Structures are given as structure tokens and as C-alpha cells.
């Protein structure tokens, strides 16, 4: 079991965003977490990634507790998240964006000996290995043709891909994706699914949070349904989607839309 | 000893309302235009000096003299808004630096016009009142009452009138407010001018109590910002409360601890507040 969430609770003043949520993620699987807006999905992901500290409960990463630790420490431990609204270094090119994301990778490779990087004639970041990694990640996310363009000039779908690319550069063992499909057109969603499958095949465990149920059903090995801060169903996506409580939670919404 | 404490506390409250009126301007400006106008202290100075000139030199009665003073301060505020602040909306660092440039200009102009020799305005209202065993000059009470009244009136106006609600809506969600027909440029300019008018008014009252120097602006804006942070940026009543708390802390602190560090007490207080309660005592985090 790679990640275990135990009785996780988060309260904001009087509002309980997450109530006693427990789940686990095994290595190599793609877990989909879905639920309507306000069900606590983003809160859950932010708690795992260290952006929030829980009011109660524990989060175990490879059996050690990580709840409440700072985001950078959790990223260093191997858990990296992407943002729902793509967060980028807008003034820089795509290449430079990914290059900054190589921070953890370089730290792992070279550690303290990076001090020698300060000498003007040595620069680890230009070393072939890292450059190759950057190119690989950029290609994986289908961004090579725009590699030298400024991050500010990207389309929304490309921005999301860049977010994934940067997260991948950190060599995550577990990648948390916060609503990766939202705002994307059908074609872009297909591309996203391909990329995510490629990621899983190369060894990364994925946890995808979204409210686009059909997208999740196609991509996830296992699904977890959240509603108002609690888990209401868990299992194979097809079964979860037919679960009476899930249908009730979503049918209401479907009716409202119709 | 008790008399000293009471006396200092009262002094602190009165000075605190002066801090409060500046703090109100700081909070309003920040909420609606997204910048901190460090030059507000200079507008206070303008109001003070024009009042002094009209009352002492031109011989106008005090209640007549303050209006042109406020008008001049507000007029300068309008000019500053159109020429400078209009281009730094929501850019905190640029707005800060531009207002600092403005301070240099205004303070230098004041030095040229009036030199560093302190100006003492003649008595507007003489006589004192016994309060809590201490003798308090009537003028100080008048100043306190007027400033507190203006702050409360501002608060009332903003919560009840249309323009007030528009301002509040704008500070919460600028795009939505714009879509609902709020003329945002007019709103922002109005707020800037109003805050400079407030500062000018504060200066006009300041002139009745203390002597005037061109450097007074720099001191008061710092206190105003401290008071605004203390009370919580975004809270109007918080500006008054923050100002009074700051004033009293300084006044009472000077009794027990070296008075040379008077200004430091407020600073330490503010740092502590920022670290533990960043929203201030009454504020909502913006």
C-alpha cells in the first residue's frame, strides 16, 4: 500500500469539508476520486499534498506519516500534485518551466555536491542527462513543438499539459491530478487519457480527481465516490457508478441540468 | 500615579483618533484600489498648513478655514489620482513606490513654502474640562468627537447608501460589480479623493493641538498604516479601534518604559499582531 488515508477530517471554522475519510492507493494503479462540487475532492488532494493540515486523522506515505508536512517536503518524498487552474511560470518558456521543475531531480542526483555548481565553469543543469529528461517529459506531454514558446502563449489545454509535465519532472511515485480534464475539449481529453496511461506504464501511480464521470470511468482502475466530505462508494468504476447512493447524488444534478 | 495613567490614556485615545482617520483612508484605498497610498500623511500636512495659513495669517474664523483646507487636500488628491495612481491600480509595489516619490515632492514643496520652523496655530478653543480627575483641554475633546463622528458617518454611509454598497461589492468582486453597472473608475477615484479629504480634515484638526512641521506626514502615515493593520485592513471601525489601541499603547507604554522608544511600541505590537492574527483584530483577510 503506497498511500493510506486514515480517518481524515478537515474543518474550516464551522464547515466540515472532509469527515473521517479513509482510503488507500496501491502502487501502479490509477485511482479516480469523483464527486459533485463541494464534496471535498480538492480539500482531500490539498491535504495529501501538504498545502493544508488536517483537523484530525492521518496520512501515511509508505507507512510514515506525512500529514501537516510542508508541500515541498511531501514533493521530495515522491507525492506531487497538479493544480486545477494551471499554475505556471508565465514569464518563462516551456523549456524553462520544466527546467525549474528539475530541482528535485537534481537534488537527488547531486545532493550537496551541487555547491560546485556555483563555480562558473560547472553547471549540472546543462548536463546531458537532465536535458534528456526535460526533452522526454516535454515529448510525453505532447508539447515538443511549442517547447521554446513562452508559457503565457499556450492554450488552456496546453497549460494543463505543462502542469503535468512539470509535475512529472519531479519524478513522482504518486501523481495527484486535480481536475485535469475540466475545461478541455473532447480531443484534448483523449490526449490526456493517452498521456496518463503512458505515465502509469512508466511506473507512476496516479490519483485523478475530477467530476467528469465518463472520463474517470475510462481511465481509472478503481473509483472512489465522495459526497459532502464522506466516501459513499468504492470499487470498480462500473460498479461504483451504478451504486444507489452515487446515482442519487448525481441524478439530482442531471435532473437539474435537464 | 493613577492621574498620570488616566491622563495618558485620554491623550492616547485622542491621538489615536488622528491615527484612525489616516488608517481609515489607508483601508479604504487598499480595499478599492489595491494599493497603499503612503502619501496620505502628506495630504494631512497640506490640510494642516492651509488651515494654519487661513486661520493665523489670513484671519479667517476656524470653522470657515477648514473647508478650503480640506478642498485643497482633496484637490491635490484628485491630481495625484489622475496623474499617478490611476496607472498603478492593484499593483501594490508600484503604488507604494509612486506614493513615496510623491512624498518627496510634496514634502520638499512644503519645505520651500514654509521652512522647517514649526508653526503654532493660535488657540481655537481655550479652556479645559475635568474628566476622571484630569484636566483635559476642550479642543482635544472637540477633535476627538469630530474625528470619531466622521469615521462612524463614513461607516454608516458605506453600509447604507448605494455608493457604499457598490464600493463593498467592488472590493469583494470587481468584475461582477463592473458587470452590474458600477462605474469602477469613478468609484476608485472617488475613494482616493475621499481618503485624501479625510487626511486633510485630520490635518486641520491636528493644527489646533500641535505644532506643524513638514515632516509630520511621514510620522502619521506610518502610524496610520500600523493602526490599519492592527484593526484589520478592510474593517472601517477597525481603523478607529486600531488607532485608539495604538495611541493608548504608546501613551501608556511611555509611562513605564523609556519614552524615547515610544514609536517602537506600536511597531512591536503590529509585528506581533501580523504574526499571530494577520487579519488584524476586526478584519477579514483580503
Amino acid at each position: 500500500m503506497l498511500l493510506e488515508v486514515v480517518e481524515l477530517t478537515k474543518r474550516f471554522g464551522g464547515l466540515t469539508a472532509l469527515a473521517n475519510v479513509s482510503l488507500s492507493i496501491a502502487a501502479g494503479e490509477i485511482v479516480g476520486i469523483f464527486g459533485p462540487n463541494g464534496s471535498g475532492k480538492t480539500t482531500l488532494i490539498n491535504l495529501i499534498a501538504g498545502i493544508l493540515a488536517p483537523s484530525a486523522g492521518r496520512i501515511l506515505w509508505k507507512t510514515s506519516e506525512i500529514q501537516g508536512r510542508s508541500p515541498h517536503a511531501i514533493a521530495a518524498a515522491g507525492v506531487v500534485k497538479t493544480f486545477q487552474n494551471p499554475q505556471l511560470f508565465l514569464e518563462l518558456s516551456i523549456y524553462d518551466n520544466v527546467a525549474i521543475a528539475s530541482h528535485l531531480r537534481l537534488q537527488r542526483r547531486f545532493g550537496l555536491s551541487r555547491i560546485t555548481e556555483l563555480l562558473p565553469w560547472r553547471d549540472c543543469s546543462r548536463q546531458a542527462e537532465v536535458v534528456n529528461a526535460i526533452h522526454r517529459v516535454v515529448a510525453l506531454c505532447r508539447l515538443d513543438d511549442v517547447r521554446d514558446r513562452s508559457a503565457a502563449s499556450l492554450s488552456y489545454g496546453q497549460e494543463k499539459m505543462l502542469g503535468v509535465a512539470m509535475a512529472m519532472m519531479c519524478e513522482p511515485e504518486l501523481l495527484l491530478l486535480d481536475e485535469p480534464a475540466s475545461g478541455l475539449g473532447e480531443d484534448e481529453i483523449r490526449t490526456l487519457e493517452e498521456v496518463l496511461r503512458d505515465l502509469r506504464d512508466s511506473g507512476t501511480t496516479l490519483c485523478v480527481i475530477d467530476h467528469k464521470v465518463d472520463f474517470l470511468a475510462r481511465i481509472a482502475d478503481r473509483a472512489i465516490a465522495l459526497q459532502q466530505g464522506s466516501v459513499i462508494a468504492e470499487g470498480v468504476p462500473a460498479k461504483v457508478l451504478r451504486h444507489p447512493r452515487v446515482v442519487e447524488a448525481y441524478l439530482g444534478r442531471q435532473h437539474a441540468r435537464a | 500615579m493613577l492621574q498620570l495613567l488616566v491622563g495618558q490614556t485620554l491623550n492616547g485615545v485622542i491621538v489615536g483618533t488622528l491615527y484612525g482617520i489616516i488608517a481609515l483612508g489607508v483601508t479604504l484605498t487598499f480595499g478599492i484600489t489595491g494599493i497603499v497610498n503612503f502619501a496620505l500623511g502628506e495630504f494631512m500636512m497640506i490640510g494642516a498648513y492651509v488651515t494654519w495659513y487661513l486661520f493665523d495669517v489670513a484671519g479667517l474664523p476656524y470653522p470657515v478655514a477648514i473647508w478650503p483646507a480640506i478642498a485643497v487636500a482633496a484637490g491635490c488628491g484628485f491630481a495625484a489620482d489622475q496623474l499617478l495612481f490611476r496607472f498603478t491600480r492593484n499593483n501594490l509595489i508600484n503604488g507604494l513606490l509612486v506614493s513615496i516619490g510623491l512624498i518627496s515632492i510634496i514634502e520638499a514643496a512644503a519645505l520651500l513654502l514654509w521652512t522647517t520652523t514649526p508653526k503654532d496655530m493660535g488657540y481655537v478653543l481655550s479652556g479645559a474640562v475635568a474628566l476622571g480627575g484630569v484636566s483635559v483641554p476642550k479642543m482635544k475633546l472637540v477633535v476627538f468627537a469630530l474625528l470619531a463622528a466622521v469615521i462612524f458617518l463614513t461607516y454608516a454611509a458605506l453600509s447604507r447608501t448605494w455608493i457604499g454598497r457598490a464600493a463593498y461589492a467592488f472590493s469583494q468582486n470587481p468584475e461582477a460589480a463592473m458587470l452590474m453597472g458600477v462605474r469602477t473608475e469613478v468609484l476608485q477615484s472617488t475613494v482616493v479623493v475621499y481618503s485624501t479629504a479625510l487626511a486633510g480634515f485630520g490635518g486641520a484638526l491636528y493644527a489646533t493641538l500641535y505644532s506643524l512641521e513638514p515632516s509630520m506626514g511621514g510620522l502619521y502615515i506610518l502610524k496610520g498604516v500600523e493602526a490599519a493593520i492592527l484593526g484589520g485592513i478592510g474593517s472601517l471601525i477597525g481603523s478607529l479601534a486600531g488607532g485608539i489601541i495604538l495611541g493608548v499603547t504608546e501613551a501608556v507604554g511611555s509611562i513605564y518604559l523609556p519614552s524615547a522608544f515610544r514609536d517602537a511600541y506600536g511597531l512591536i505590537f503590529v509585528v506581533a499582531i501580523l504574526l499571530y492574527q494577520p487579519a488584524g483584530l476586526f478584519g477579514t483577510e483580503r
Partner: protein
Amino acid sequence: MKALLWVPFLVFPALIQSNFILSIFIFSFILAIAAVSFNLIFGFTGQLSMFHAAAFGIAAYVTSLTTSFFHVSFWVALFPAIGFTILISLIIGSICFNFQLRAFYFAVVTLAFSELARLVILNWNSVTNGTLGLMVLDKPSVWVPGAGLIKIDGVFGWYFFSLAALIFTVAVCSLVLGSWIGRCFAAIRLNEDLAQTLGIDTFRYKLLSFTLANTLAAIAGSLYAFYTGYIEPNYLSINQSLDIISMVLLGGRSSVLGPIAGAFVLTGLPHMIDLSGEARAILYGLVLILTILILPQGLIGTLASWRRAA
């Protein structure tokens, strides 16, 4: 290569014999150190620190007092000055960055600490002589091969001494900024939340930037004190911080060398044009305003973007 830019400065004293002009250059070099180092925390890491003048002034006092109380040389006295600067930078930086103070509040808190420092120095009459200031009578000495130990006294010696210090500062800044540390600074400046999730310990790097900037400012302050021979509490005033900020803005905050241009203009102009104190202040205010509104990239930055566009 960029090293060639320094050559004119090296030969300058041979061409210009005027002590007055060379003196302006010396002041410009020393203040350029303060400006370039301020740009580390401001332009490159994106944090507006109002503590820079305090670092400048505190070190000036510590260096001067150490040489006069303990009768040691300038170089030995630099150690406690730099050590103390590092210590207070770590303390203040930890307080500010630990509590995640952003933008405006960081400026206010650093301003508060700067003012506190100034008040302490102003009122600690027994040690600092308060508002009257202190004379600094010592001069640093340098070992020059061939000539032995020379006292840096007089315009000629100070010119090369301060120029060397400036080159040292620029070298340190360039090395740091060209490394992964500089990339982390940029990440913090551009998008701090993102930097955190990518594994960058923003607390550590902000602290590093703040401490390094203040340490270099400490060197500038010490040099300033020993050159002018006089220190006073105004070294730590808000105005001094604002002067340095103006130099960076005027010169350009996106390059290491930009602030040097700003330092030269703002140090040199007031001496070149004979103006009254008030007129100078008005000019300074206008420069600041015009730079922000019209030349946001500063002189060097604007030049650089013209070259790129061409």
C-alpha cells in the same frame, strides 16, 4: 564578454585627474554594492525588504565600533559585522518567512525591524553617541605584492578598493544567480505556490536570499563608514532604504548590473547639478515616479529589450 565592461573603470583614474569626480565614483561604487545586493532579494526573489538600509547601517556601526574599541584592523572587524548581520538576517527572515508574510506585510515587518534598529542606535548614547554620530578614524590596509602593507587612504586608493569590492559583489551575485539557487529565486518570484509543490523549499531559499543580500549590504555599509570617516543613525533611515530601491528601479531590476547604472545616476546627478536640498528631493521624487510609470524595466532593462527587439 561582460568582463570587458569593467575595463573602462580600471583605466578611468588615469584619464580623469579630478578628485571630485573620482570621489563621486567611489560613492557610486559603494552604493552600487548596496543596490546590486538589494536586487537579489527584490528583483530576483521578488520580496520587497525594507531592512536593507538597516543591514547597511548596523554593519557600519559594528565595524567602526569594533576597530575603535578593540583596536583591530578593518578586516578583522568585518567578521563580527558580517557575523552579526547573518545572525539578525536569519532571525528576522525566519520570523517573516515562517509566518508566510507576503508582499505588503513583509515590507511592513522589515520596516518595523529597521526602525527599531534605528531607534536603538539613536538612543544608545553611551555606545553609539546617538544622533551626533561617530567619527571613524581608522583606514583599512591591504597587502599589495611588491609594496607591502598599504593603508587605503586618499581618493586613488579608495577608487580601486571600492571598485574591487563591487566586482567581488557582482561576481558573487552572478555565480549565485546562474546556479540552481538563482532558478529557485526566480521560481519564488514568479509563482511561489507552484515552486513549493515542485519541491523547492521556499522558506530556505528566501532566507538565503535575504541573508546574502543583507551580508553584501553590510560590506557596503562598512566601506561607506570607513571612507566617509563618519557614521550616524541616518544610515538606517527609511530614506536610505528608499534611495537604494530607487537605484534598483532606475537601473533595472532584471539584471545584475542594472542597479549599478541606477547607483551612478542617483549618486552622481545631485553632485553634478548644484541644487538645493529641496530641489534635489523633488527631482528624486520625479525620477522615482517617472521610472515606475514610464520605464518599468529601468534604464538597462529598457536598453536590453530594445536590443532584443532590434
